[in-house]
C-alpha cells in the first residue's frame, strides 16, 4: 500500500496532476508515512526524472513548470511535517538562500530551500532578484553559517563572485560558508571564485551543506 502510494505520487508529480498528488500525500500521511520518505522517495526522484527528460528534449518548459507547480502544492503540505520529523536530529545550523540581483529565477532555488529545510536546517529564503547588500545584512542578522547563492543567467553569475568579495571586505568571510548553484554554474566556476561548496542539484546541495557544517 505504502509502496503503491510512493509510485503513484511520483507519477502524479511527473504528470503534473496536482489534485491527485495532493490527495496521495494526504492519504500517505494518514497511513502514518513519514513526510521525509514521501519527498525523498517519490517527489525528488520524479523531479530528477523530469530533469532527465528535459535534457533529452522529450519535455519542454510548459511541462516542467506545471510539474513544479504540483511539487509546490505537495511541498506546502510536507515541509512543515518534515520540520517536526527532523527536529530530534536537527543540526539547527542556519542558512540564508536567494537568487542574486538581476535574476528572477525562483524554482530551483526554492526546491533547494525546501530540501535544506527538510534536512533540518533553519532556512531564511530571501527570494529572487536579491540585492547583494541584502545577502550580507541577512547573513549577519540571522547569524547564518551558510549563504546559498543561485544564478540562472551567465550575466548574473558574476554576482556570486562579487558577493564573496563583499563578505571578505566586511570581515564576514570567515564566519560564513558560501555555496553556489544554478544551471550555468559549474564546480569549476565555484572553485574559481573561491566558493566553499557547489551543488549540482538539490540533493547534492543538502549533502554539501551537511559536510560544510560538520567541517566547522
Amino acid at each position, binding site marked *: 500500500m505504502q509502496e503503491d502510494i510512493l509510485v503513484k505520487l511520483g507519477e502524479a508529480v511527473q504528470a503534473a496532476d496536482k489534485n491527485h498528488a495532493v490527495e496521495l500525500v494526504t492519504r500517505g500521511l494518514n497511513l502514518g508515512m513519514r513526510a521525509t520518505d514521501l519527498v525523498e522517495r517519490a517527489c525528488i526522484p520524479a523531479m530528477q526524472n523530469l530533469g532527465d527528460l528535459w535534457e533529452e*528534449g522529450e519535455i*519542454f518548459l*510548459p511541462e516542467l513548470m506545471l510539474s513544479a507547480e504540483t511539487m509546490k502544492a505537495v511541498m506546502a503540505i510536507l515541509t512543515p511535517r518534515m520540520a517536526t520529523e527532523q527536529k530530534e536530529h536537527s543540526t539547527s545550523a542556519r542558512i540564508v538562500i536567494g537568487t542574486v540581483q538581476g535574476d528572477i529565477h525562483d524554482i530551483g532555488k526554492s526546491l533547494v530551500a525546501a530540501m535544506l529545510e527538510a534536512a533540518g536546517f533553519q532556512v531564511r529564503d530571501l527570494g529572487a532578484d536579491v540585492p547583494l547588500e541584502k545577502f550580507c545584512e541577512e547573513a549577519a542578522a540571522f547569524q547564518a553559517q551558510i549563504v546559498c547563492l543561485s544564478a540562472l543567467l*551567465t*550575466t*548574473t553569475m*558574476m554576482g556570486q*563572485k562579487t558577493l564573496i568579495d563583499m563578505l571578505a571586505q566586511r570581515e564576514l568571510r570567515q564566519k560564513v560558508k558560501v555555496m553556489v548553484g544554478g544551471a550555468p554554474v559549474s564546480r569549476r566556476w565555484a572553485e*574559481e*571564485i573561491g566558493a566553499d561548496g557547489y551543488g549540482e542539484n538539490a540533493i547534492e546541495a543538502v549533502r554539501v551543506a551537511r559536510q560544510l557544517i560538520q567541517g566547522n
Partner: protein
Amino acid sequence: MNLAERIRDRGLLLDGAMGTELQRKGLPAGTPPDLWNLQNPEAVKEVHASYVEADSDAISANTFGSSPLRFAAHKSSESWEIVTRRGIALAREAAKGRALVAGDIGPSGFLLAPHGPTTDEEVERSFAAQAKVMDEEGVDFFIAETFFSLQEILLATRAIRSVSARPFFLSMTFEKWRRGFFSIMGDPIVAAMNAMAETGAAAVGANCSLSSADMIEAAEEIRRAVPIPVIIQPNAGQPQVTPEGTFYPETAETFAENIQKIRALGVEIVGGCCGTRPETIAAIRAQW
C-alpha cells in the same frame, strides 16, 4: 529599390550584438542595455557607428527591451517610450543614411497564461504601443527577435500589423536537442517557420542560443521549410563565464566562414547575435 527587391537581389547584412558590446564598455550585469539610450547615449552611438563602419546594410536600434511590460517588470523609473524614441534617433544619427534602421522588439519577458500571469491581450497591447512609437519615429522595418514562444511572436506580429504597414522580420530562438531543434516552449522549428511565414512577414528565421556552427543545420531546415526570405543571426558560440568576465569562443573568421556556408544554402539575411562584434561583421562582408 524597395527592401524586398534589395533582399532578393543582394541579400542583407545586419549588425552584430549590442548588449555584449555595451557590457564591454562598462554596462553593469543586470542593467537593461536600453537604459543607456538615456544614461550613456554616446556608448550606444559608438556601437552603432562601428557596425556602420563594418559595412552593415542595416542596424537594429537599442530597443529590444523597451516595452511597457518589460519596463514595468524591472521597475524602471524611466519611460519606455522616451527610451524607444531616443534609441531609434541614436541609430539614425549613427547610420548617417548609410544603413537602414530597424526597430528591434524582444519578448515581453513574461510567460503567457496558463504558464504565467500575463494574458494575450496585455502582451499584444504592450507590443502595439512599442511598435506604434517605432513607426512614428520612421524605422525602415521591424525586427522581432529572440522569441522563445511561437504564441508570443504571433501576438507581436498582430500588434505590429495593427499599427504599421512597414515590413517586419520575425526571428525565434531554438535549442538543439536529440530530436531536433525546438524552442524551450517546445515549438518545433519547421512548424514555427511555417506559422510565421503565413503572417505576411518579410523574412523569418532564427537567432541567439545557437553557435554559428550549430546554426548551419538549423538554417538548412528553415530554408527548406519556407519560400520567403530567411534571416539567421547566430551567437559567437556558447558564453564561457570566468571570474574575469564572459567570453564567446568563436573567432570572427570561424563565424564568417560558417555564415558563408549559411548564405550558400540560400539564406538572404544574416547578422550576429550575442558575442559578435564589428570585426565579425567586417569579416562576413569581406567574404560577401
